[in-house]
């Protein structure tokens, strides 16, 4: 029975083509390791960077130069201590020391508190803090202000709350005094009214004047009521942006899946397909294929299908990793996903083969794969918003298929779009596929 099956299988040319890929992959220990480890490593790294930017629990070292003699400033330092590892330096040559310690890596951030900081705050004036950062580390310099602001948010809230409470107290006290004055005035008006006969012609003049005064006091009271109810938060930050997501998705982190998988798939397939093609050329496998009258189209298709299956493994691994470690939830449209998946892996495999055709050696192919993968990643929109890039880069980014791949995968795995809904994107993907396939076919045909 087994032999009968084998007899049927070996009569099919594709068996030989698949058998070769399968056997060689199993014999080469490095390739399976790359296939398995790459998605794990890249997922962990990518998710960790997201975590590092959003998680407030990271301990960063902060050096402080405190020139403010007021003990009130200790509240600021202790509020920082909860989130940062804070060390206050001696006031002598403090700023020079602080800069040196940032340079040698002792501190990540330096903070200088001016001598009038507390007094300004206590007199309801804006206090200024100066922070120092190593500008030779642009990534850190770009985010450190945000991180420090976030670290000081509770202290700022306390200052605002104190100011608000003080303002309310002032207003309340003023209103109480105004009420007292108003009571005295009303009593006077009443006494005058009771004795208007005594006052004679003086009464109408006095009465009119006192009533005007009463009306003015009521107006002042109303204004003070407004001040009493005013929010200091409004004065410091009148407009607050409240970010809302547009998709009704249980876990927005699921969107990261499409970015991680397409990058992993691109990297793996570019490396495997480009070096695989050169290996086939070097070992005269393509010569055997041509002399056995096997069409080149078969060879290209089998390579694409085989490497798609490898990518399938990576797909499952990343999916499982995100579900079990991040609690990501997915709304998968299976038909849409299958179409998208094969389109993505076919495009990536063809780019890999194209590199293999152009590069003469495996080392050059690896180098070209790496050189291509990095801009692909940066221009995919997965790390930097494409809209923020200069015009010519936006044009290049739109021409790169990775962006389309991410979009397709996002729609079919997280938002559950059907084939009908993603038809225009699929058509664009098919156009990429057709062009790449024609190029690879022509190059291989020309070479062999």
């Amino acid at each position: 029975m087994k032999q009968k099956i084998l007899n049927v299988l070996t009569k099919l040319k594709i068996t030989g083509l698949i058998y070769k890929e399968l056997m060689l992959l199993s014999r080469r220990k490095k390739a399976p390791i790359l296939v398995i480890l790459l998605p794990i490593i890249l997922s962990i790294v990518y998710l960790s960077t997201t975590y590092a930017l959003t998680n407030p629990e990271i301990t960063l070292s902060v050096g402080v130069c405190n020139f403010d003699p007021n003990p009130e400033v200790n509240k600021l330092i202790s509020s920082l201590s909860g989130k940062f590892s804070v060390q206050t330096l001696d006031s002598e040559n403090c700023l020079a020391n602080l800069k040196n310690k940032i340079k040698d890596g002792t501190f990540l951030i330096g903070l200088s508190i001016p001598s009038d900081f507390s007094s300004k705050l206590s007199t309801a004036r804006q206090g200024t803090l100066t922070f120092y950062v190593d500008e030779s580390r642009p990534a850190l310099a770009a985010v450190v202000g945000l991180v420090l602001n976030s670290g000081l948010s509770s202290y700022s809230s306390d200052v605002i709350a104190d100011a608000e409470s003080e303002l309310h107290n002032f207003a309340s006290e003023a209103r109480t005094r105004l009420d007292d004055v108003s009571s005295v005035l009303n009593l006077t008006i009443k006494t005058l009214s009771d004795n208007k006969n005594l006052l004679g012609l003086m009464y109408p003049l006095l009465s009119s004047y006192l009533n005007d005064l009463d009306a003015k006091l009521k107006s002042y009271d109303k204004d003070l009521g407004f001040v009493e109810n005013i929010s200091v938060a409004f004065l410091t930050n009148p407009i607050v942006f409240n970010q809302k997501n547009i998709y009704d998705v249980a876990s927005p982190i699921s969107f990261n899946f499409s970015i991680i998988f397409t990058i992993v798939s691109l990297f793996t397939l570019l490396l495997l397909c480009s070096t695989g093609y050169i290996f086939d050329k070097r070992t005269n496998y393509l010569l055997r294929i041509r002399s056995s009258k096997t069409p080149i189209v078969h060879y290209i298709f089998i390579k694409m299908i085989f490497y798609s299956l490898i990518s399938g493994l990576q797909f499952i691994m990343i999916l499982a990793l995100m579900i079990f470690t991040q609690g990501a939830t997915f709304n998968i449209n299976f038909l849409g996903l299958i179409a998208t998946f094969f389109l993505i892996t076919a495009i990536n495999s063809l780019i890999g083969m194209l590199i293999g055709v152009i590069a003469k050696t495996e080392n050059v192919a690896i180098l070209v794969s790496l050189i291509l993968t990095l801009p692909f990643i940066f221009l995919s929109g997965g790390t930097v918003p494409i809209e923020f890039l200069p015009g010519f880069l936006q044009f290049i980014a739109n021409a790169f298929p990775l962006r389309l791949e991410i979009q397709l995968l996002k729609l079919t795995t997280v938002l559950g779009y059907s084939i009908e809904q993603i038809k225009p994107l699929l058509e664009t993907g098919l156009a990429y596929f057709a062009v790449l396939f024609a190029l690879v076919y022509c190059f291989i045909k020309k070479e062999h």
Partner: protein
Amino acid sequence: MFNFFKKQTKRYCLKVNDLTVKYGKKLVLKKVDFTVGKGDLFGIIGLSGSGKSTILKSILRLIRYKGRIDFNEKGVGFCPQEDAFFYELSIKENAILFGSLQRIKYTTIITRLKHYMKELELDEPLSKLAGELSGGQRKRLNIILSILKEPGVIILDEPFAGLDYLNRLLLWRFITKLKKRGKTIILTTHLLEEAEDYCNKILIIKEGKRFALGSISDLKRRFKFKLYARIKVSYISAALLEKIKYYSKKRNIRVLSVFNNEISLGFPGEDIYENFLKFIERSGKEYKVIELKPPTLNELFLVSLA
């Protein structure tokens, strides 16, 4: 009536007309013509870069060419010069892979693999990795993988390159066996003496052109080359060499090489040879005949270089 039908039967296996190949702007083959008969052991010889492998690739339609290539045989097996199998796979796995590319049944693949391994004395387990075989064994495996389909025509590109004498002998015997079984074999080689012993037809390629075609006796006849002599002269001055060349040209003597006062010549007959010796005597030089024999393919090949 009978003769009419006999004439219609194609007796050739391969007919090549006006074969021209260009690599970029370089003309590699220039209007090469030849015919290979059924059951021939056809040897293609020539210097490295003369276009031997290009002829094979054209026959297999692996490259673009101009001209006409007419095959009268189904099934062609091609064995490239370099190992065309995977070192990471076992002998059996390689056979399954390449057998399947030629649509052969699994059981047939294994039977034929064992049969050819026995014939080629490749006494190794099927599970052995191809990369663990010796150079000679790899060469034999390379050939086995090319003939698993048992094609009518077997094309071998330099099958003896890098092999020791025993391995070469083994391979020649195997090739002769295949010929006896009715297979047509086309091969390229640099081993002229062995090609002379085994090939029944030789094509000499010189700078992409057909220099000569036929059996050894055909070539001898065509070159008017009956006697080969290597003569040591006491001193060959430039003037004497000019005289010798002039004398030879007039009498169809081929000056094959001149080196260190030693001259190799091809004579169309014995009388011309004896007259030549007298001519040397007349020039006042002493001489000694080092070698005198009927020419072999080695000497015929020298004609193409001269």
